[in-house]
């Protein structure tokens, strides 16, 4: 290590002075460590922790755009729970997240299994598969908006020509269940690559010997999958499901562009309802209460996920 100032003093040599002492101080591991994370901490405190606190404060007060109001306690929460639009939103969120996640998990794992084979053109295929995830969601959703148009829908056009449905075909974005199906379809289209590629990575990390040992043991491919592959990719799957649950619950882009929560509030999610109430309606207090509703749900999900994954 470098020779310290004390040693120099004792030896009678001139001391290094304040600048050098400052540098010494800075070089200490923990000072340097704190110093380096300081910008990040400052950023996150001022622009995440503080607004989070503000959100809680808004939700507990009668805060409107342009006129901060008084503290009202749990009134906003009581009001939104009593409101049927919000209850509908609650239901929508669970239906949306539940179905979309299930589809993404099942299809994602299956896709990952397919991609894990040594195929020619693997790189290109993987590239294509990831595309929906990388393109701006709001823009690709516009394509879907046009594909689901009540008059000119190419989906309907094709289905009618294929004799799957009768003309004129459902008004995808204008009828309750169809709108939810459409929104889920777009969410799956967009989120599946994330699942597939991440699970694929998990699969690749599994040593070949495991698969081959099972094969030699004569297990059928289904049992091989269920008892060998699946347990090995559980950690990866756990992480992916965690992220996906959070992003799906908090989804805004897809619903906002496709249906804005309609028809008749049947596709509203927390985020879109909060936007409508808080920004378009100006009622920031209720809007914040709606947004914050996600948080306990997410905290529970995170908690269970981390426990479950850590156990493995």
């Amino acid at each position, binding site marked *: 290590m470098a020779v310290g100032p004390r040693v120099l003093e004792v030896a009678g040599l001139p001391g290094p002075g304040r600048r050098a002492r400052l540098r010494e101080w800075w070089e200490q591991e923990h000072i340097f460590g704190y110093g380096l994370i300081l910008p990040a901490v400052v950023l996150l405190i001022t622009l995440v922790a503080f607004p989070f606190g503000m959100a809680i404060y808004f939700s507990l007060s009668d805060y409107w*755009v342009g*006129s901060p109001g008084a503290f009202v306690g749990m009134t906003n929460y009581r009001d939104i729970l009593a409101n049927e639009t919000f209850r509908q939103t609650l239901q929508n969120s669970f239906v949306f997240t539940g179905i979309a996640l299930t589809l993404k998990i099942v299809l994602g794992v299956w896709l990952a299994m397919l991609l894990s084979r040594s195929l020619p053109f693997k790189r290109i295929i993987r590239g294509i598969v990831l595309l929906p995830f990388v393109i701006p969601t709001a823009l690709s959703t516009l394509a879907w908006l046009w594909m689901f*148009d009540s008059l000119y829908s190419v989906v309907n056009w094709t289905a009618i020509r294929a004799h799957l449905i009768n003309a004129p075909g459902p*008004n995808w974005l204008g*009828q309750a269940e169809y709108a939810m199906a459409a929104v889920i379809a777009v969410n799956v289209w967009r989120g599946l690559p994330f699942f597939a590629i991440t699970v694929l990575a998990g699969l690749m990390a599994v040593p070949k010997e495991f698969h081959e040992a099972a094969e030699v043991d004569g297990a059928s491919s289904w049992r091989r999958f269920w008892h060998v592959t699946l347990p090995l990719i559980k950690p990866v799957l756990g992480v992916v499901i965690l992220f996906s649950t959070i992003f799906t619950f908090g989804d805004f882009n897809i619903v906002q562009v496709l249906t804005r929560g309609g028809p*008749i509030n049947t596709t509203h999610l927390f985020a879109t*309802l909060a936007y409508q109430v808080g*920004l378009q309606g*100006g009622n920031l207090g*209720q809007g914040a209460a709606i947004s914050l509703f996600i948080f306990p749900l997410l905290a529970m999900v995170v908690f269970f996920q981390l426990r479950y994954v850590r156990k493995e």
Partner: protein
Amino acid sequence: MDQTAPRSIPRRRFLRTAAGATAGMASWLALRKAPAYAQKRELTFLSWNHFVPAADDELRKQAETFGKANNCTVRVDTMAHLQMPTKIAAEAQSQSGHDMYRTASADPFLYENLLVTMDDLVAKLGKQGGGWYNFAAESCQTKSGWKAIPWFWVSFPGTYNMAHFKKAGFDGPPKTWDDLLKMGKVLKKQGNPVGIPISHCSDAHSTYWSVAWSFGGKVIEADGKTPAIVSDKTAQVIEWYKELYKDAMEPEVLSWDDAGNNRFILSGKGSWIHNPISPYNAALANKQPIADDLNHHNSPGGPAGIHSAPPNLSLGIWKFSKNQELAKEFIAYLFQKQNFDAWIVASNAFNHPPLKNLADHPIWARNPKFAMLPKEADYAHPRGWPAKPNEAVQRIDDNYIMADMIAKAVNGMPTKRAMDWAQEQVALAVKGQLKVG
């Protein structure tokens, strides 16, 4: 240890970042506080993204010409109309922003104390333009004077498909709402139902106000505070809607947005809608053959006459503006006949003038499909009439109370209960306690 390459990277990176940050800060500061002596006067005007983009081009052109002639610059900023209320509220709260802006609905009343009084300009332009229509005063004249100048209004006629009507044996469009009901039943049987949105969109309310007033119904009393929904007139209106929905329309009207009725009539399926002239113009622009079959007619009337609630937009100047006189001059410039005419033409007849003399434009007079449109100014009212537009009226509109009332009724709720529910909501709106959704 490699001395050269690694040393240059971090320093370069640091310098680049620092330079970038400094430049960013400097430009930010510069943009926000330009020294006054270095700038020409700048008039800032916040307007909407006009539905017909060419109209905005014309507006900007006129702004530029005015600027050159008056040694100033006029900056026209535009934004989507749905986002405007939030932006205006933000400007009002922070007391900074644009000098003038396009007001809508109840703004002159909502921001009465924050807007400049325009009585002198209003009188001058009124004299020069042959007088203002009644609804203009109703929309902009507050207790303390005119707080905005009416700028233009958008006609809201009935649009109908002549071919379908002929096939059903009718030689003309409906003149009353009851006519519409009768004709609608026949048309629906023919496969060409009519369409009025009963959903959360602006069109739904525009039609509701029109129908309600035609039957003599009200939503709020003239004092602006007392709910006036519960009445036998409103009951008639609800019954009318119920019958129309059952026998002359299809369930899809419950989920329409503002573009729903456009799609409906342009597809060839619909036979009648209540809407501005955008579907017809779109069909013309897109060279669709259905344009030949479409025509317009004045809004149907009822026992209490013909009434309609067309969107009407005005120009307001904030009191915090430092360019109030300049703004007034600019507005006067926009209202000069040749300028306003050019703007009407650019908008494809979409913009209607609030001044009587300017309404005589050949773009309407010479086109049989448009000739009847200007007449609407005679029977137009701002929303909330007979009450003056105010916060309660704004909230009623923003929360789609009447649309919800009708939706509940057509979905089975007894008329009386639906009316009571709406009455309650209006009372809450007056108190400022309207629930979400």
